């Protein structure tokens, strides 16, 4: 059995985290449905500028929902709001300053990744997955990790998720600018899928980082965590691409986008459940000792 390094796994935030995650999933689905209803009922016409502005506001919705639910639930011993917000912003900054340029310019991903299913699968893991998950890891590891505020294993998941949501928000803002705005409903699905997926991958990595800080783990532990998150990242987007074939362009393939949303919901609920169960077992074991 692992030996504690400097703190017992208390998991004071465990219920807050899982409730925030589940509530966010429900709220985001409601958000997508409301956007579709709004588009259907009012059939609004946008100029290029108002479409982009609307897209940017929509990009911020998943972050607002997740942070909002987390703050409401995290009452017992709340994480400092400014720290969560800082990690969220840091996630967005590393995406904008490093992640997107490295993937789009250095690795030229848009011009080869989708050449064949094999390149999409392995390139998605080895290049996209590792770049994105390493940056989220770095955002947590080189900022909050050594802080006194990072005082229990579940904090790894909380701060990594904040970094993941920040990363996803920046990807969504880039998407809105690149596409010059997209149809509202389809853009809403894309934004929600990206946010849920990146929050989940980061949650996986955050579990490993939280354990790393408070329990004596072997040298392979943290590389395995980043590799697991990168593999989940590459596999998820490969699977979404295969299931929602022809809909990588947001303008087309509307029906198939719902499949992507369903997949993201399954991923988020699955990851949250698994992480919560694993950490609850740890708490129980800790109390029994």
């Amino acid at each position, binding site marked *: 059995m692992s030996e504690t*390094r400097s703190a017992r796994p208390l998991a004071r935030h465990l219920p807050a985290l899982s409730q925030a995650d589940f509530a966010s999933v429900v709220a985001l689905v409601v958000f997508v449905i409301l956007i579709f209803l709004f588009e259907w009922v009012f059939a609004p016409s946008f100029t*290029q500028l108002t479409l982009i502005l609307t897209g940017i506001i929509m990009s911020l919705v998943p972050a607002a929902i997740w942070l909002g639910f987390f703050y409401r639930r995290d009452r017992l011993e709340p994480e400092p709001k400014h720290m969560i917000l800082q990690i969220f912003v840091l996630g967005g900054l590393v995406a904008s300053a490093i992640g997107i340029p490295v993937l789009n310019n250095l*690795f*030229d991903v*848009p*011009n*080869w990744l*989708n*050449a*064949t299913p094999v*390149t999409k699968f*392995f*390139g998605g*893991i*080895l*290049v996209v*997955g*590792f*770049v994105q998950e*390493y940056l989220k*890891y770095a955002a947590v*590891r080189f900022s909050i990790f050594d802080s006194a505020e990072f005082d229990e294993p579940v904090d790894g998941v909380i701060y990594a998720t904040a970094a993941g949501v920040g990363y996803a928000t920046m990807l969504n803002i880039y998407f809105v600018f690149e596409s*010059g705005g997209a149809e509202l409903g389809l853009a809403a699905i894309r934004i929600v899928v990206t946010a849920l997926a990146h929050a989940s991958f980061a949650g996986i990595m955050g579990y490993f980082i939280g354990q*790393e800080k408070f329990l004596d783990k072997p*040298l*392979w*532990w*943290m*590389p395995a965590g*980043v*590799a697991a998150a*990168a593999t989940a990242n590459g596999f998820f987007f490969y699977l979404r691409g295969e299931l929602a074939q022809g809909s990588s362009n947001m303008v087309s393939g509307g029906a198939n986008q719902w499949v992507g949303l369903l997949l993201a919901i399954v991923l988020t609920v699955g990851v949250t459940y698994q992480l919560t169960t694993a950490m609850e077992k740890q708490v129980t074991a800790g109390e029994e000792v």
Partner: protein
Amino acid sequence: MDAVFDRLQSLRDDQLSIISVTVLTLLALTLGWGLKASVQDQTRLVSQNGITAAVPLDWVTGEAPDTAALRVWNGRAPAEQFLATLYPTNEQVTIDSIVVQRNLMRGQQLNSYRVLDKVEGVINGRNIFEVQFAYVKLGRRTDLPQVIQGTDYYMDMGEGQVLVLTVEAESGELDNLLPDFENFKNSIQTGGTE
């Protein structure tokens, strides 16, 4: 003393952990780079209207604008395309007249068509022309217009034929296409099967 030793050990473990994650990531990226290089080096041969050429793996054959032409375009960036067109020549139809004719036709068919530069030369005793051009592609009603840049290479092939090779891309992207276009140009074979 033990506390100091434990603290040092913990710091060492932390550093080793960071290094191991970084090394693993670099290893993955190196493998990814190899994958990228292998994909980008891959080409396939396509034939259309008796012209055969090597094109990037993920490019697709498009409807050719001329009966004696090969047109391929990037499946993910439709503005990026290569064309190869063969023109018969005789005493009346010369390479110069083909240059003039094509530019006149484009001026009528394309929005804001401009010839940016024209260079004439002789290679191995045969005339060649390089014509750089630009035009505006309006696209769908909701799309922003795109400025397309391109270059035509007119080559006198002898035996009464002029081969025109064209590369087009969205303004600013043309230089990125040139390595692939060079492969395309070098692999051109005329008189192949359809």
